[in-house]
């Protein structure tokens, strides 16, 4: 799995961090998403897919 972000669209909802805290974080200044691990291990894949689906700004793209 490979993750890309369109961080420019991020509304700083932080849902991705709640769902997959090992993969996503937020910048302290403005809450914009930060990618901690662009190619997370299999154990994280479900959480990442859930985060991508729930993100209210369609920021997170998951590539197989």
């Amino acid at each position, binding site marked *: 799995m490979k993750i890309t972000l369109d961080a420019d*669209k991020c*509304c*700083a*909802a*932080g849902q991705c961090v709640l769902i997959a805290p090992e993969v996503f974080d*937020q910048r302290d200044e403005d*809450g914009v998403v930060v990618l901690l691990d662009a190619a997370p291990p299999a154990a994280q894949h479900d959480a990442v897919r859930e985060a991508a*689906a*729930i993100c*209210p700004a369609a920021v997170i793209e998951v590539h197989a």
Partner: protein
Amino acid sequence: MTARPIAVVGASAAGLAAAETLRRSGWRGPLTLIGAEPHLPYDRPPLSKQLLHGAWEPEKLRLRTEEQLAPLDLDLRLGTRATGLDVATRTLTLDGAESLACAGVVIATGVAARTLPGTDRLTGVHTLRTLDDALALRGRLTKGGTPAGEGVAGGGGTRRLVIVGNGVLGCEAAAVARELGHEVTVVGIEGTPMAAAVGTDVGTLLAEEHRDRGVRLLTGTVEGFDTTDPGDGRGPQVTAVRLAPGSTSASGGAAGGTRLPADTVLVAIGSRPAVDWLTDPALDTTDGLRCDAYCAAAPGVYAAGDVARWDHPAHGRPLRFEHRMNATEQGMAAARNLLAELAADGPTGTGDGTPAPERRPFAPVPYFWSDQYDLKIQAYGLTAGADRVETPVRDRAGRRILALYGREGRAVGVLAAGLPPRQIRALRAVVADPLPWEEARERIAAATAAG
């Protein structure tokens, strides 16, 4: 006989989330997504922010590319309106003609902007709900939008925008229009902007932000519009908004006349759930489509997003949210519950032999945000309808605020602006379940003390 499809009505945030979840949860039968607008699913929050501002173009609002939609194998019907649903047979009518007998239906038709009588034929009076609405309004606010000869400096000079309605949408549009250099007046029935959504404490702070940037805030009721007919065949053009006698400026003084000159008017007075097409008496469509805790409106018929009013298990009363986050979460929940119901009822076409999941009540922690100027407001839980509000942090100079909302002795919502993201996420836990008020206050203090 070909298998019956599951149909999702409404091709926006909630409908798209439902369609994707149906596929991810194993629905291999036909899947129809019906959307009245001609556009591929797009996101609405940027309409009153980046799109209106001109910073983003429509492509950026697209929720999925065509390549991302392809694997869903959708029968995608854009520019198509559902006009009826027979609940007993789960049969949809499309555009008043075609019948579509379905295995299940997810209704995600959202809400439509409310308008004022007599405005539909007036040039210059706008609403802001769809991409087409936003592009039309942007056309008037940005350079070259107003043809020469309408009494306005061509090329983006200062023009007068009157916004009717001082809710969240009106305030966001006011901020953008100020940044674009327009003279902006906001007229609301309520004395404080956004008070219905966030209460008067937070509303008062926001009012100060707007006043600091030169937005004029008035309390009043619109009586009518003055118009002129330029005689170019396009019909009457708005020139002013007339207020009923007794309207005042929000700081208490007289409004200085009840006629507000306007080149453009935005009517942002809330919305009506898009349920007019649901006339089957088996459905309760009072203030949205009434659903149970599973988001079911009837057997095999589920609803999600702005249109759905369902029994929230943690709050013990029917609720309806017009929040972007809820649209996705409820779309996912409704889709899962529909599949669980179909599986329990017999062969479903999921066909991979996995045991049917149980239906689960939908019990989200609501989340809402709004951007005005460089201020980002974020809220968890319920901030509307509170009987008690406290603002433990209220630092106007630092532009930081934290408010706690209570109802019937319990803390039900929290709102923050200008706090670090970690603290804001910690606040979510405080209102995930309504806690006794005092306990919530202590937890708020702890969450904001730990930097």
